[in-house]
């Protein structure tokens, strides 16, 4: 059994202020390979803001994020991170396959080929279908397929279970467990209670 390298994502003393309102402050966490960080809290408590700080879209108003001991800007972090947000990030005028090809070109080829990833998210017969013809849940699964075809360690997921049915949720939970077993880590927000066996789940309540 090969030993996988262990990665460490740290946030120290993070705070976020939006429109003169303190969303959170003094927030610290440590996440290593194989772990899941679940952000909880009511609407407007800063879950998405924290995720966007971890994506580098926003600067924290105080504190810093470290990747394996280095500040995120000085490290490989942005190449190791993948994000699926509220918006699916797929073009509705392109087919499923065309969308995934663009995503693949933008990143580095990962564990699965496009066909394998489509099989995994149960979209295998949809590769020639325009995305605008897909249902909301199928679009969600397509945007999650992007995580599988590119090489990444940290998954940052903002409400990944939105508009998914029961099977879809179970499917994504399986994918998340596999990712953690392969040495990845996940930061997510969710209203659903996630059901991940044999995965170390940390919880932060922001409210």
């Amino acid at each position: 059994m090969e030993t996988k390298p262990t990665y460490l994502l740290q946030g120290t003393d993070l705070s976020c202020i939006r429109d003169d309102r303190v969303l959170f402050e003094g927030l610290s966490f440590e996440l290593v390979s194989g772990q899941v960080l679940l952000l909880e809290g009511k609407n407007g408590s800063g879950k998405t803001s924290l995720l966007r700080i971890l994506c580098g879209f926003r600067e924290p108003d105080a504190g810093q994020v470290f990747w394996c001991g280095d500040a995120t800007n000085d490290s490989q972090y942005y190449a190791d991170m993948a994000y699926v947000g509220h918006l699916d990030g797929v073009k509705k005028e392109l087919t499923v396959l065309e969308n995934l090809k663009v995503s693949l070109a933008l990143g580095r080829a990962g564990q699965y080929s496009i066909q394998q990833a489509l099989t995994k998210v149960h979209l295998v017969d949809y590769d020639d279908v325009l995305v605008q013809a897909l249902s909301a849940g199928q679009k969600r699964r397509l945007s999650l397929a992007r995580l599988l075809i590119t090489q990444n360690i940290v998954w940052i997921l903002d409400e990944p279970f939105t508009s998914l049915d029961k099977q879809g949720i179970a499917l994504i939970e399986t994918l998340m467990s596999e990712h953690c077993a392969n040495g990845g880590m996940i930061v997510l927000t969710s209203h659903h209670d996630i059901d991940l066996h044999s995965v170390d789940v940390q919880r932060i309540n922001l409210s």
Partner: protein
Amino acid sequence: MSLSHAFFAIIRRDLLLALRRRSEAANPLLFFILVITLFPLGIGAQPNLLQAIAPGIIWVSALLAAMLSLDSLFRSDFDDGSLEQILLSPHPASILVLAKIIAHWLVTGLPLLMVAPLLAVFLGMPTQSLGILLLTLLLGTPVLSLIGAIGVALTVGLRRGGMILSLLVLPLYVPVLIFAGNAVEMAGSGLPVNAQINILISILFMALVLAPWPAAAALKMSIN
């Protein structure tokens, strides 16, 4: 995957999108043709006047057509989250933004070049200045897309950025308009236009090197 692969994937994607949204992509070209065809009707039977102001008409119309098309550069990517994914790519954002600008020019700038000679003849422009007109459009319209990209990148996050965009971008378009319009006019009188063409070339290269970088930085701010 290599950077050139990502670069061409973005160009290919945007061209494909333009093909699937044909009516939207044809808008600037239609606008260009309509404005130019309306001028002779408005001015009336004064062929000499029309001939004298033809370079100005064509260039001002090209400028306005470029302005009209700018919003589509990042709007749909901003709205559906594709822009976030592009900026998250490990490749340098400025290069990917340059790919988007090039695709935008291929869709909105290049068609203007194709119909411009026809419209120039329609306005009675002397044949010796047609070549120079095409050359100035070839050098000038990419500059409009490049400079415009900075303005759109700054305003794409605003709900009503149209007015600010015009105020930001139009003053920066003026040098291109002056040198290009002047070159076509001089060429019509048979005078040398090397100086104007050289200036346009230098503006193009400067914009090509300097514009993608602030545009990418502004996009990062806009998705905040």
